């Protein structure tokens, strides 16, 4: 914690807030991490454990690890996300070495995505409507690509194999989809 704490203002980015709160041993840091990086970290974990339920389990352990190792984050070495991903990957790999993981692997090879609820309330209704529209207008293939790449733990290579689509096309279409979601057409 020898790092200089950024002085927080209303302009501070999510990352700055998290770094500040972590250094300050404030548990709100975990809430911010969960809200802003939770689904991305879950995806990173799923790339390794391939099972949503188990990945959620790992994510919970990851949050605890983040808390217990909050002092070890060093912004000189990379962003908070890079640090979070590193913790998540290690935890996911640990999980694959555990006994319950191997047992699950034997009993159920493929696991369907579990539908989960829980929604955040939005500050700006119209902004939200617009974003919803963008999501709804996303072509089916691109939606599938976003799902696989960001939420179902598939690597670009796996997507390419599974959808029988050249790797370069996978990458281009993901970028296209993201641009669409950003309203950049």
């Amino acid at each position, binding site marked *: 914690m020898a790092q200089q704490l950024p002085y927080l203002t209303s302009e501070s980015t999510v990352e700055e807030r998290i770094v500040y709160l972590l250094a300050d041993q404030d548990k709100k840091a975990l809430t911010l991490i969960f809200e802003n990086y939770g689904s991305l970290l879950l995806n990173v974990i799923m790339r390794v454990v391939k099972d949503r339920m188990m990945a959620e389990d790992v994510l919970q352990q990851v949050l*605890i690890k983040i808390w217990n190792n909050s002092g070890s984050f060093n912004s000189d070495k990379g962003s908070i996300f890079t640090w979070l991903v590193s913790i998540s990957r290690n935890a996911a790999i640990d999980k694959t070495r555990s006994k319950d993981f191997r047992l699950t692997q034997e009993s159920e090879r493929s696991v369907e995505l579990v539908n989960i609820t*829980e929604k955040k309330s939005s500050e700006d209704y119209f902004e939200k409507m617009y974003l919803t529209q963008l999501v709804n207008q996303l072509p089916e293939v691109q939606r599938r690509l976003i799902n696989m790449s960001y939420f179902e733990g598939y690597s670009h290579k796996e997507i390419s194999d599974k959808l029988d689509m050249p790797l370069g096309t996978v990458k281009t279409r993901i970028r296209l989809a993201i641009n669409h979601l950003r309203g950049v057409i």
Partner: protein
Amino acid sequence: MDIKEYIASGILEAYWAGELNEQEMKEVDRIASIHPQVKHELEEVRSAVLNFSENLELSPSKTILNDALAQITEEEQPEFLKEVFKVDDEPVEEKEEKKSFNLPLWSAAASVLLVISLAFNFYFLSEFQSSKNQLLGLQGDLEVIKDQQSSLAELADEQKQQLAYADLRIAHFLNEDNIHVRMDGLDLSPESFANVFWNVKTNSVFISVDNLPEPPHGHQYQLWAIKAGQAPIDAGIFDHSLLVQELKVIKGDVQAFAVTLEKEGGSPVATVDQTYVKGFLEKS
């Protein structure tokens, strides 16, 4: 470096997908830290993905966060003050305060014990010495001398043992990881008292048998941990003649300790009306 080309390469999308290895991610971080445009773009991609997940309800369940927070709180609980005194949210200052209060008290108690121990030590040593000289000087009845010598040696041994116990007791008083609970005599034996040391790291319970009457034949004292709304939990039977003993491991929200007289070998259920001493964990 052509920033536009870099952004268009799709590496930023890959970054959030977990597609890059640690080194590649750090490289993106480095470039983002020197090119605000890349940093901005990176954030835009993240918020696009975040919006997508929120719209399609793909975000992980909030239960994960709540469970993690609950577990963290639970793990912090061995910092016993929080648990015992149920100060839920700002325990840090409380704890510091408590510590700085307790330490001088333990130190004082320990110092007193140490001084007493040393005094006894000196006293017996000099007595032993002078008796020896006296005996040699008198050259009296050998039988008597031998008797006296051995009884003095016995006394010295006993004293040594007492000293060892006193040292152990001092160690427990000084141990910052110990919660100390003094148990005072109840109606059954108002003069009695005993002390419990509860190690917050190992959860081990130690009893210091200070002043309890000799138990009647076929009976033994037993220590109990008392939690709210539960029957007393067996913390172990102990030997009345040993000053300091380690008993069982006790975890959780203990509010008090008590000693009852039970049949030899102990009892699974406390005979509450035979409670000799009892003490509550201090409230802050």
